[in-house]
């Protein structure tokens, strides 16, 4: 038989195809990362504390002890860290810091003139690649030290990667809830609106009930809880429509989508009116939250990792455990795989569906408070068209819209694929209209590849 004669080569090829087939979305993600990396291969001029330390070592090597050094950097946070690292590196070695410049080339000239006036000697200038090209630096009668540059993909820098994930954390968080809904063969179009509603409710509550500027962390937390609860109740409403009245999920959540968006706008306008006075024209502006602590969730970080990413990862782990280790997870898969068989097996179908839609709403609400915190206010227009991006992420992640098939890990990868595509296009400098075209085509391609999975898998199956 041909299969038997193929020997081990055929078997290995089959195994490889099988492996690729099962983890196609991972392959796609890796491929996209590779493409993005190649497309963004640029000269890198690191301005970090590590490169600062390297400059300090260069100075010590070339120009030992009694030596005066001028540190030059721009007036940015990264530059200051860089400069501080240089000084720390030189500290205690006997090298004298003659002066520091944080600013423009002009500031360097002024500093050099000041040093000349004072009459001190200047042996070296420690700076980074960019400032080393400045006229005053080059013409100064001193040796210039700067860190070497190297080539590396801009895409693959820690800062960019964190940025990519951070900007798409809200999409990924909503995609979790959407995965549950899609697993039950449903769909939820209301997530974008629920995101906005949760953000606005949180902002209004923080401003009007929990003290505005003076709001305590507990008060802010209560406001956020209120926002998430409202979104969860929205989900419960569509769940009720779907279970008790057999309304198709598409229609039920379409209604809720408009309803929630309208409510968010009304609340925002009402808040504006109360702020400005009864007669003011209502405009749907963001509801600003004045309490400084409110921005922490969206803009703070833990151990260098932005908070939205931390929240996203925590939620992903929780959702993964929920779907693989608990009765509820099994029930969700069963309801999506075959409702009637699930019902006859004693699965509480109605309760499972209610919980799924409720959870989806809650996840949208969580994304809503992240968004509000990031922009320091509830934006009634936030999250428009998010539902489509989220559904794309879930489908790209391998879930079947027919229900019963899909994994949380797949959704995470799907969300990342969407994020990487967007980021890659941005860095590569593709204009926004063209971006839409490329983006759409890439989603279709990703889903198409996913559809090929069963065909690849067929190599493995042994029919009886």
């Amino acid at each position, binding site marked *: *038989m*041909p*299969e038997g004669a193929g020997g081990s080569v055929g078997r290995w090829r*089959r195994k490889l195809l099988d492996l690729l087939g099962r983890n196609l979305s991972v392959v796609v993600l890796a491929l996209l990362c590779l493409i993005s990396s190649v497309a963004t291969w640029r000269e890198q001029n690191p301005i970090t504390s590590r490169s600062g330390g390297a400059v300090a070592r260069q100075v010590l090597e070339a120009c030992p002890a009694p030596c005066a050094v001028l540190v030059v950097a721009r007036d940015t946070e990264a530059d200051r860290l860089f400069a501080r690292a240089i000084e720390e590196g030189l500290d205690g070695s006997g090298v004298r810091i003659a002066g520091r410049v944080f600013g423009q080339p002009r500031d360097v000239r002024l500093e050099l003139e000041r040093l000349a006036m004072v009459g001190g000697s200047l042996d070296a200038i420690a700076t980074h690649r960019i400032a080393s090209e400045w006229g005053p630096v080059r013409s100064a009668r001193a040796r210039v030290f700067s860190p070497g540059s190297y080539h590396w993909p801009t895409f693959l820098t820690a800062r960019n990667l964190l940025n990519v994930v951070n900007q798409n954390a809200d999409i990924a968080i909503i995609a979790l809830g959407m995965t549950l809904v899609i697993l039950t063969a449903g769909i939820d179009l209301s997530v974008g609106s629920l995101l906005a509603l949760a953000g606005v409710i949180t902002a209004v509550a923080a401003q009007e009930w929990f003290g505005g500027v003076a709001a305590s962390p507990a008060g802010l937390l209560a406001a956020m809880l209120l926002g998430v609860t409202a979104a969860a109740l929205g989900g419960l409403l569509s769940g009720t429509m779907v279970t008790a009245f057999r309304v198709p999920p598409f229609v039920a959540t379409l209604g809720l989508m408009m309803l929630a968006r309208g409510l968010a706008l009304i609340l925002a306008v009402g808040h504006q009116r109360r702020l400005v006075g009864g007669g003011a024209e209502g405009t749907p502006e963001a509801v600003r939250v004045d309490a400084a602590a409110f921005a922490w969730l969206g803009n703070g970080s833990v151990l260098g990792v932005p908070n939205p990413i931390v929240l996203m990862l925590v939620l992903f782990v929780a959702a993964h455990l929920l779907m693989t*280790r*608990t*009765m*509820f997870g*099994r*029930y969700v*898969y*069963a309801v999506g*795989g*075959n409702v*009637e*068989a*699930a*019902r*006859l*097996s*004693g*699965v*509480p179908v109605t309760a499972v569906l209610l919980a799924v839609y409720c959870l989806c709403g809650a996840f949208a609400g969580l994304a809503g408070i992240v968004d509000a915190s990031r922009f320091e206010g509830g934006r009634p227009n936030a999250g428009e068209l998010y539902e489509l991006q989220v559904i794309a992420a879930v489908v790209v992640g391998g879930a079947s819209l027919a229900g*019963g*098939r899909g994994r949380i890990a797949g959704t995470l990868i799907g969300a990342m694929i969407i994020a990487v595509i967007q980021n890659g296009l941005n860095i590569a400098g593709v204009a926004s209209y063209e971006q839409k075209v490329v983006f759409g085509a890439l989603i279709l391609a990703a889903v198409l590849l996913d559809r090929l999975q069963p065909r690849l898998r067929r*190599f*493995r*199956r*042994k*029919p*009886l």
Partner: protein
Amino acid sequence: MLELHRISKSYPGVDALRGVSLAIGAGEVLGLVGENGAGKSTLIRVVSGAERPDGGRIEFGGEAAAFASPADARERGIAVIHQELSLVPQLSVRENLFLGAGWSRRGILRRRWEEREARRLLGLLEMDIDPDVRCSTLSLGACQVVEIAKALALEPRLLILDEPTAALSPREARALLRQVRGVARRGAAAIYISHRLEEIEAVADRVAVLRDGELVHGIDRRGPAVADDGRLPLDRDELIEAMVGRSLSTEFPPRLPGAIAETRLEVRGLSAGRRVRDVSFDIRRGEVLGLAGLVGAGRTEVARIVAGAMPFDGGEVRLDGSRLDLRSPRQAIRSGICLLPEDRRGQGLILGRSAQDNFALPNLDRFRRLRALVDRRRERRAFSRWREQLDIRLARPGQRVATLSGGNQQKVVIARWLERGAKVVLCDEPTRGIDVGARYEIYEWIRRIASEGKSVLLISSELEEVLGLSDRVLVMHDGRIRGEIPDPERADPAGVLRIAAGLGPSEETSVA
């Protein structure tokens, strides 16, 4: 008409067909039997163009045939009736009959002609089905009849029927068999696949037995089709033996010791519209109560109501004396009433999930830890225990249940309820579409469950099965219980059939 020469087909790891040679002449009906996995389906797929053979030659109507697709084969006059229905539920019977290409006049439907033709085709099958009702309102049996009418509309030269009577009542099945003979009389050939050997006996001129992809008995040359005395070359026992390769002494396993004890389940005055009318009966501990009747007599509905799966208008069900609240299957299962549904794939199993997941689904509360977590170790242990006891054949517990054979799928459902510790097991057509060997094992399990003190309600359209397994049989007709057979092993099947057909003995046996 059709000649197969040394056809072989293999899939990775399996040789599905190994050099099968067959010949079927015009006007002949070939019975094709064999256990599940013996290669019948593959043979049909090869003949009908769905699959290409790896080796061998097919001749059809005297010329070499290599069908490119099922549509190609259909064009050449090969019609296949599959086990699975291919009707569109939202369309009417007539619309389904003429759904395929080639019935319209340049895209314009010929409604009058269709109506006439539909009546004629359904009339041939002796079925009183209104061509204008939607297929979704028909019973499974009626749907199968429509399916057959659809194939007959093509006036095929070769008609292939794959388990066509699985969902039919005996009357419908007999009409179908007559129709198959009629097709043969008009000069076409037919291949008839069935697990019901009495049907094979009734309809086939010759019988081919497949085992492990080989023709073990029957015909590779044109031989005398029928023995001189007009009998088939093989009798039923020989056929079974040839199929399974081992001899089954009796068709039903022996009764196990275990006394029938006190009443466990009492059903009183159950009614649901026109389908179930005032049904009352008892089942005792350790008893197998058979429910005989034609398709549509209301047997399935009775089981579904008792299992909490169907709303009803009146009546009550008591378990061990206390009244049950039957609002959902969940509640019925909690009280110990479990249903083996008739449509195993549609209602019993989540096909996309693993065998173990399907086994565990109603039992997750038993493998629970910290309220909601699933203890996967206990789950695995429980499954492997039942897997061993019931001899469920699978490669690994995570194997998708859809890839198992019908018998093994049914065993997964049985294992699920045994783990649950069911008190009452409602078996609705437990052996439908299951091969002889696995069927016997399921009989054994029904016996065994009863001997352990559980109560079994057995619904089957195969009269032999109900009579052979039950301790007592009730016969339903038109939603009512029309008779009771206290000693089914000695009962006359013809008499039972008379009751089921509504012609029953006038003295209606009272129940309870």
